[in-house]
């Protein structure tokens, strides 16, 4: 069973964010607290993650808390990419 490498994911996400916002971020920085990024940008991030990592963010997973930091995004992507049920792992 291949677990996606969250460290690589974090690196990719930090590069993506820096490219889009023109600012360097830390994996633990809250991107959306006061003075941070907008809710419309948050939605663009969700769409980017879905396209890039072939995942679908649905139901209870679709909440801002899962996207507040790069670390949490990477955790979410890793979880949604992991094969469900493990039967094929």
């Amino acid at each position, binding site marked *: 069973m291949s677990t996606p490498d969250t460290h690589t994911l974090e690196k990719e996400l930090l590069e993506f964010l820096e490219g889009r916002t023109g600012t360097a971020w830390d994996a633990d920085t809250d991107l959306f607290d006061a*003075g941070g990024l907008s*809710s*419309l940008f*948050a*939605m663009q991030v*969700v*769409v980017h993650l879905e396209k890039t990592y072939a995942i679908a963010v649905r139901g209870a997973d*679709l909440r*801002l808390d899962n996207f507040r930091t790069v670390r949490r995004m990477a955790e979410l992507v890793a979880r949604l990419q992991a094969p469900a049920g493990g039967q094929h792992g």
Partner: protein
Amino acid sequence: MRLKENPLTTAPYDDSPPRHALTVLGAGVMGVGITVLALGHGLPVHLVDVDRERLDRAADLIDGELRLAELMGALPAGTPLGALETGTSLKAAAGATAVVEAVTENAAIKAAVLSEVSGLVRPGTLLITNTSSIPVDELAGALERPEELVGTHFMNPPYLIGTAEVVRGARTGDHAMAAVAALLTALRRRAVTVRDAPGFVTSRILHPMINDAARVVEEGTATAEDVDALMQGCLGHPTGPLRTADLIGIDNLVDSLTVLHERTGDEGCRPAELLLRLVREGRLGRKSGRGFYDYT
């Protein structure tokens, strides 16, 4: 609360319509946003536009914006989404409990649409105009029953902004005021009711301010980024006036300023040359991918 209606006993003009069923006119920025707000609160919506392509695009935009609303925790938990229908005929309004007009900010177009709708709905149906700046009573003159029209100035995006400006025209009736209050409660929006005037409160203050921000950029005093950074960082404006212009749509902003200028004579409302140029170049803001900022 009313029990679910029995379809077998439902006839046109029956006096027990479903609790709320909206017809939204205009599938642009605001028509889409208002539809998302209503669907997310479980209300069925029939969305109408003259432009078939707009309606097709609106269906995708609505899906995306429903997800944004969900992401931001802006929808009531456990409420199934309302059903969406779209079409190009105003006749859908006959089945509505309320009609929300959100077509282009042009008094002649709005009067024509509202007049036609007024002839189609059952008497007593709440008619709402989402105009930014046209006085409600000016539009009420086009209706068969002017007392049915109320102004409700939803802000963009309506599902993320909890307050709506409600405008009572000189001829707006008590029944319509009670109906709009009930609808806004169902949509969990706080209403602040004001008197009728060009631009009411929010557009009268915000739009000339954005116009000035554009003039400052036009005159070379500062870049759009710096104007927004100062208005945000020093004066606590949530997004900055020029990012707000891009969110509103610069064509709509120019239309609203023109309405204000014509009706108040205030030179501060004459649209800045820079805004007019952006519209000529098709740089309408977020909706076209580019305005003061680039969103592509």
